[in-house]
């Protein structure tokens, strides 16, 4: 079959600009052939090269005493957790595939992130996910589509995670108009390993054999990385062949076989085939090893007849790995992969010439300097729009609604309502680690092999980021660390998933830059280096860009099982104490969005030193055994936080009775404001005075708000005005909304 001629149209169709084409010609010293053009187009796509974001990403702090493998060095960063143990973790997006094929899109997202983790030599032990969809509560076609996407994504994640036997223990789901037609599916995985088990993705040792292991290559997922680096349009459905098909059973075998192979000591380098498949893994391993890699496509296990070199190299078939083996130890690969009934083949060897050379039998079809292909993609600093001042919310324009109606309305909003419908579908208990059920502030997991307790959470309030990306990104980090503090953990490190619109639009690029700078600053403040992550640009539906969504995932350590703390109230009679101020800021709040239909105003302001004092205070109280529950105030403010602590009790909910005075706040402002750095704890009545004294001694503002009751009501008295809600009706709003919407 002869290749198509390289015309300006063919070049443009590959997403390569005329300047980039010139650069390709100067790297090669000649015109590329059609296959090479395809190879460059995927390697230089945003998804693989970060060409539009790399200059920004360099602003992140990536080092620290606990960092064993830095962001960008390998497939995932590695962090020391003590006693010779380490964790590898990372978050990655599968937004575009999930938009056109939610089940497989989400499932293969999970498969991809798990491969990134065991490529590092780590055994994956748990997953989280952070999801965003358009509204699901209407009868219109759009809501129906959003429900279909939501149901498909959740069952895709469940399908893959449950089958492979890695628990999905937490995360978040938000619903907002800006994600209609462009859902976000960010998946997180964490693995555990000994320091000496860290595996590297370099093709080292000239003459070492290169093995292909895992599933056969087919035509699925052709050029998926390039697809993910475009906007979604009406025609995106035509891109369905760019979505891969996942087989969690194959990946389970691959996972066990690779860990066995790594333990045998025969591996010189290992790299998963994710985005850009065989192309990416060959040129990246060569580039990292400072070597060359030569492979023969005739030796690659294939699922279909008659595949062209272009198709084989650009296929994103799942569940495949490239392994470089120490010469002379080829038999070990054979033995292990035959035990697991998995395909394997020696397809090439490590060379000393720095080239990625691909042959089809005797014919050379690709010959490109590996380093320039893998690591020297053009980098762009796009034009950023000028910053605009965000006017503070004018409270006079916000009519004061009856809190008796607003609270149930907030609790019934799918972003705030219980996500039990979601996590009940995930096996969150396999591996015997999830000591806290999903739905609390952070997921808590006991790693049995290492005897360590980890806490992890994901966060991003995209309304804040829409209004002020810098402040929103800072708050995302702060809130995530706060969630960890509430569960008794000290944060260690952070992974991020930057979801933005088309970076060629100056507005969008401004958002990206602002968010990265805000996040970088917050990471320094909280001493949580970035260990890696993912950038997903071009998140635009036919209507508009999504709200900027720089999601963060933070992992921390809990020193003692006695410190594990959850958000649910524990016993009637316990005192309820607010750590932090009453607050007043309603700008960009969920109250404003859900009850007034307005996304406006400046988000709350974050004060790092105050925030950190609050975290340290709650952790100190937890360590002293003085905290029975802890829950941070986030979407919906104090009233929602207290209601959630009542409703999250397993079995029958507990009531609460609160009373406080303000300095002239409106009742809705007092109840629903989203000022930062606030945590609601409960403690025994006898310990309340000690808790308040300790907080005063630490200089952290706090007040006793009331107590937990066994009544069927939540009562909050603000400046003498009593608001009383029946728990049963709050429970119905919060616990049953999502299930009801999804069965309609």
């Amino acid at each position, binding site marked *: 079959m002869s290749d198509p001629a390289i015309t300006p149209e063919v070049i443009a169709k590959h997403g390569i600009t005329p300047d980039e084409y010139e650069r390709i010609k100067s790297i090669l010293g000649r015109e590329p052939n059609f296959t090479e053009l395809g190879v460059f187009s995927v390697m230089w796509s945003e998804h693989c090269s970060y060409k539009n974001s790399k200059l920004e990403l360099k602003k992140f702090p990536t080092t620290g005493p606990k960092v064993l493998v830095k962001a960008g060095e390998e497939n995932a960063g590695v962090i020391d957790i003590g006693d010779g143990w380490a964790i590898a973790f990372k978050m990655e997006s599968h937004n575009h595939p999930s938009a056109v094929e939610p089940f497989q899109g989400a499932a293969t997202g999970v498969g991809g992130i798990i491969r990134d983790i065991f490529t590092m030599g780590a055994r994956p032990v748990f997953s989280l996910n952070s999801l965003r969809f358009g509204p699901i509560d209407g009868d219109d076609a759009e809501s129906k589509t959003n429900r279909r996407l939501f149901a498909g994504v959740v069952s895709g994640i469940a399908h893959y995670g449950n*089958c492979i*036997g890695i628990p999905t223990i937490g995360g978040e789901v938000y619903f907002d108009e800006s994600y209609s037609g462009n859902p976000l599916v960010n998946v997180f995985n964490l693995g555990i390993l000994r320091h000496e088990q860290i595996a590297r993705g370099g093709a080292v040792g000239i003459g070492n054999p290169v093995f292909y292991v895992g599933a056969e290559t087919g035509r699925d997922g052709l050029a998926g990385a390039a697809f993910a680096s475009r906007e979604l349009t009406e025609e995106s459905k035509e891109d369905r062949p760019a979505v891969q098909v996942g*087989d*969690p059973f194959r990946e*389970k075998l691959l996972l066990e076989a690779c860990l066995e192979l790594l333990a045998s000591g025969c591996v010189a380098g290992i790299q998963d085939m994710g985005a850009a498949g065989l192309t990416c893994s060959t040129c990246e391993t060569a580039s990292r090893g400072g070597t060359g890699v030569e492979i023969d496509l005739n030796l690659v296990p294939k699922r279909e007849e008659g595949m062209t070199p272009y198709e084989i190299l650009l296929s994103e078939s799942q569940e495949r790995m490239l392994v470089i083996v120490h010469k002379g130890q080829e038999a070990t690969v054979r033995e292990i992969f035959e035990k697991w009934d998995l395909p394997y083949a020696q397809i090439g060897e490590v060379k000393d010439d720095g080239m990625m050379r691909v042959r089809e039998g005797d014919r050379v079809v690709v010959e490109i300097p590996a380093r320039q292909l893998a690591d020297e993609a053009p980098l762009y600093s796009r034009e950023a729009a000028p910053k605009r001042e965000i006017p503070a919310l004018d409270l006079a324009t916000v009519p004061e609604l009856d809190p008796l109606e607003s609270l149930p309305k907030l609790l019934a909003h799918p972003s705030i309502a219980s996500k039990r419908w979601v996590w*009940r*579908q995930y096996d969150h208990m396999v591996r015997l680690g999830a000591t806290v059920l999903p739905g609390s502030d952070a997921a808590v997991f006991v790693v049995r092999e290492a005897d360590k307790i980890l806490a992890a959470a994901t966060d991003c309030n995209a309304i804040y980021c829409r209004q002020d990306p810098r402040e929103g990104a800072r708050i995302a980090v702060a809130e995530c660390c706060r969630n960890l503090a509430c569960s008794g953990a000290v944060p260690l490190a952070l992974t991020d998933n930057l979801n933005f619109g088309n970076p060629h639009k100056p507005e969008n690029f401004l958002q990206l830059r602002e968010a990265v700078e805000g996040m970088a600053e917050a990471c320094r403040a909280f001493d949580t280096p970035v260990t890696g992550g993912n950038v997903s640009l071009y998140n635009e539906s036919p209507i508009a860009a999504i709200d900027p969504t720089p999601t963060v995932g933070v992992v921390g350590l809990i020193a003692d099982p006695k410190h594990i703390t959850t958000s649910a109230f524990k016993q009637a009679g316990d005192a309820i104490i607010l750590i932090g101020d009453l607050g007043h800021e309603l700008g960009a709040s969920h109250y404003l969005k859900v009850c007034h239909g307005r996304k406006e105003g400046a988000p709350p302001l974050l004060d790092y030193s105050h925030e950190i004092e609050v975290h340290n205070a709650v952790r100190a109280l937890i360590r002293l055994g003085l905290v029975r529950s802890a829950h941070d105030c986030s979407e919906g403010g104090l009233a929602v936080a207290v209601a959630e602590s009542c409703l999250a009790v397993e079995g029958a909910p507990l009531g609460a009775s609160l009373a406080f005075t303000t300095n002239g706040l409106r009742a809705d402002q007092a109840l629903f404001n989203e000022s930062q750095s606030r945590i609601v704890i409960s403690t025994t009545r006898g310990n309340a005075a000690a808790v308040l004294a300790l907080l005063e001694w630490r200089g952290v503002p706090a007040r006793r708000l009331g107590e937990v009751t066994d009544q069927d009501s939540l009562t909050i008295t603000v400046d003498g005005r009593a608001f009383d809600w029946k728990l049963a009706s709050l429970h119905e709003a919060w616990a049953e909304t999502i299930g009801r919407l999804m069965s309609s």
Partner: protein
Amino acid sequence: MKFAVIQFPGSNCDQDVIHALRSFDGAEAEYVWHKSESLDGFDAVVVPGGFSFGDYLRTGAIARFSPIMKSVKNFAANGGVVLGICNGFQILCEAGLLPGALVRNRDLHFICEHVKLRVENAETRFTKAAQPGALLNIPIAHGEGCYFADDATLDELERNNQVLVRYDGVNPNGSCRNIAGICNREGNVFGLMPHPERACDPLLGSTDGRVIFQSLLS
């Protein structure tokens, strides 16, 4: 007592079962790969949960052909104790060691949550450490855990006290007669959908699963 924990490709609760078993005094536990044909030296067999062979074709339908299953059948025929948990229960049904079948949950969703089980027969090797009628808090995690059999089979199971545990209160998956676990006529093969190994450690919220392993060890 030495337990064999069978590992099929796709088993994923094998490590959990080993971990739980080793927390009991007097229990030893080792993996046995599905291509092995020997159970020599073992006193009991556990077929753990997971997705053996990816649940392809039908849950448990391919695993029953693995070489080890011939030995498991012989082991059972000679009176050896065999416990099947979740996918292990499905495999034992497919292999004909237990009657009936497990089909898709009533609501078609995978369900992972704690459920209440009532011990219906406390006079077996698997339940003798429990009080008759005791309520156990043990989690389930399955997409195909709806126990199904024809009325004649169900009547016979009831008549012979082969229903060892039943869902109490809420039937999560639509199982016939709320059945969560059954044993064979001889009482040496037991299959159940809930995961007792996930309820053996107070950190995980319940230790009610221990009674099953304690029964076997006492």
